[in-house]
């Protein structure tokens, strides 16, 4: 073949490949599974079991696809939602995270699915505000958990420690652990979002009223409460109560098992799975308590609610909506909840892990004040900026006042922006 003929043929082949790639979707084989994008690869068996139960009700199962890095996941999802072939279902945060996505017009409304779930007694209507934007519901809860302090019971028994009921007792526990050569609390700023977990817990324990008001832009980061809270945080870091801020949160379950850390702030129920994988038995190997109030004003607990949303551009929108109408049915939630040791938002579905079940009961029976995690509790750009600044503080806790001033400057700008774009 002459060179020119070869080049022409190769060029035509390349051109036809490009045109084929750009052409509209070819007729595809009908699949009876809904593509479901998520950021938790280890949860795939649970998704599949729930999908199997869902298929028995609707004919549609779940086809989970994972992007395991939280930041990358958000970018990819935001991009996919703008395309003509987005996934059918997407795992997404609740609160402002859902609102931030809904305002772009890329999410389908799920008013019918919500109404059906509430009418069937599967869903507490109080959660509606976590998924509402502009009067419509855009998501249903995938998981709900409570942030508590986990500990290794064998280590605590050796050191004769008891779960603290007051802040002074909590600081006493930290001091005892520190003296025993164990870093008391596993926290980190790596990957940013773990910062929001500890900040939420500390702020909710320090002054839940200020925390909630700050989350909605009605309180200042320069108030007395955050100033005193940052001093406390700084003191705890200086005393060596926290792990180095470049630790990895994925290592904490193993570090707890190996007695390198004394406590891990993380949610019931799904974190129990990681602890069990790290070798701590669910039958007495670990236990957990709600962080005591700093000023003794009653217990508060931070909750994390993640949801399922449906892209407006889904090619199987009706099927996705039907699946959402059946998602919270007990026979779908039971295998899902069993897989994670709990976490179903359907209160009729029991949590299997005894520690998680006890905390869930305590929250209900003692009417513990439930506050949303900071990650979902303010506009996302503000949350990201705040956690970045606080991550810097965790690495170098030298200027708490300067950090608060930066947080307040950003809060004023971002709240103004948020109100402008959502008004």
């Amino acid at each position: 073949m002459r060179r020119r003929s070869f080049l022409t043929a190769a060029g035509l082949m390349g051109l036809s490949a490009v045109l084929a790639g750009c052409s509209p979707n070819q007729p595809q084989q009908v699949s009876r599974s809904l593509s479901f994008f998520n950021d938790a690869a280890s949860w795939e068996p649970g998704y599949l079991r729930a999908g199997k139960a869902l298929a028995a009700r609707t004919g549609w199962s779940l086809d989970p696809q994972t992007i395991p890095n939280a930041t990358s996941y958000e970018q990819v999802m935001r991009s996919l939602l703008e395309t003509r072939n987005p996934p059918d279902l997407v795992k997404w945060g609740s609160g402002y995270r859902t609102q931030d996505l809904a305002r772009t017009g890329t999410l389908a409304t799920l008013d019918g699915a919500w109404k059906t779930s509430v009418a069937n007694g599967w869903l507490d209507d109080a959660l509606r505000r976590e998924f509402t934007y502009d009067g419509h519901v855009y998501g249903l809860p995938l998981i709900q958990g409570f942030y508590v302090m986990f500990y290794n019971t064998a280590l605590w028994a050796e050191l004769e420690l008891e779960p603290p009921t007051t802040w002074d007792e909590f600081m006493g526990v930290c001091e005892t652990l520190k003296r025993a050569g164990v870093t008391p609390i596993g926290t980190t700023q790596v990957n940013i979002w773990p910062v929001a977990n500890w900040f939420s817990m500390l702020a909710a324990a320090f002054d839940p009223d200020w925390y909630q008001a700050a989350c909605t832009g009605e309180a200042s980061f320069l108030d007395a409460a955050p100033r005193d809270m940052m001093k406390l945080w700084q003191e705890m870091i200086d005393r060596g109560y926290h792990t180095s801020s470049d630790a990895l949160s994925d290592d904490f379950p193993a570090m707890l098992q190996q007695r390198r850390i004394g406590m891990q702030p993380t949610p019931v129920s799904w974190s129990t799975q990681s602890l069990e994988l790290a070798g701590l038995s669910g039958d007495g190997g670990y236990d957990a308590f709600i962080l005591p109030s700093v000023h003794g004003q009653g217990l508060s607990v931070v909750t994390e609610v993640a949801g399922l949303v449906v892209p407006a551009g889904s090619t199987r929108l009706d099927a996705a909506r039907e699946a959402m109408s059946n998602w919270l049915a007990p026979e779908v939630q039971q295998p899902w909840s069993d897989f994670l040791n709990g976490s179903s938002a359907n209160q009729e579905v029991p949590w299997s892990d005894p520690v998680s079940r006890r905390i869930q009961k305590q929250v209900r029976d003692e009417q513990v004040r439930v506050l949303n995690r900071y990650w979902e509790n303010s506009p996302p750009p503000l949350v990201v900026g705040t956690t970045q600044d606080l991550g810097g503080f965790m690495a170098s806790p030298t200027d708490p006042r300067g950090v608060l001033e930066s947080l307040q400057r950003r809060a004023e700008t971002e709240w103004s922006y948020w109100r402008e774009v959502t008004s």
Partner: protein
Amino acid sequence: MTATTTRRGPGRQDLPRQPARRTRLASHPGRAPAPLTTRIAFLAPAAVLVMVLSLAPFVMTVWRSFFDDSLVDPHFNGWGSYARIITDPVIVRSLVNTFFWLIGTVAIPVGLGLAIAALTNSVSWGKYARLAIVMPYALSGTAVAVIWNFILRDDGALNGLLEGLGLGSLAHAWLLEWPANTIMLIVANSWQATGVAVILYLVGLQGVPRETIEAAALDGVAGVRRFFYIVFPQLRATTAVVMGISLANGLKSFDLIWVLTNGGPGRATETLAVSMYWQSFVLQRPGSGAAIAVILTVVVVAVSVGYLRRQLRTS
């Protein structure tokens, strides 16, 4: 002067332009010059690709940078995004970090690459040393970041080694304090990037005529003096290439920083490329992201043009 004349060919400057062209065409007897339309047809695909994939996005980015950060229905904002960015201390630090990267990623690979290539070029065990140096170049930036995370973390290998050697007082939170964390990132990057500099300098050293070195030896010039007076000047073209590659790598540095520190803590290790990503994709601020992209482009073009003009002028 003599060398220049020899390279260009005797009397070439004195020849009129037209005969020179005929001489070139004469090497393909019987082939007429292609018509203008044919030449344009061959050029068009490349020109269209460059316009569609490079120039058009650039123009759109410049255009977008003059609008605000609204995702839906953005409003014309003039220089507003630029004004906010250049007064943002995080972006100012990001700019400073970018210049650190620029200096570090040029100086270290050029210096180390030259030294390693020169020192291992003529010794019998040199190939093993070179293999060890060059191997990291085969790794991706992400893999390098994971390796260096094991080394630089507070409970990582470096601090463990220092404590094991009884030098615990030198242990340091390498990734947590600015500017040490930025410097460590540059070191990690150089660990990988030096390999290509070594390869290029080795090729350059192979091209140095033995006659010049033997002549220098006969004249009694040896050791470091011979290297700097005789060898190094003949590596000028190689140095130009190594510096050019290093400049580009320094300015576009992203993957290593993103994986190793996410630009943190507290956005302390961001470069302009990382800041652009944060603003555009994490914070969903397309106006601000576009403005940073334009600033980064201006820096890259200014540095590249300045460097290339200097190289072209002196050669």
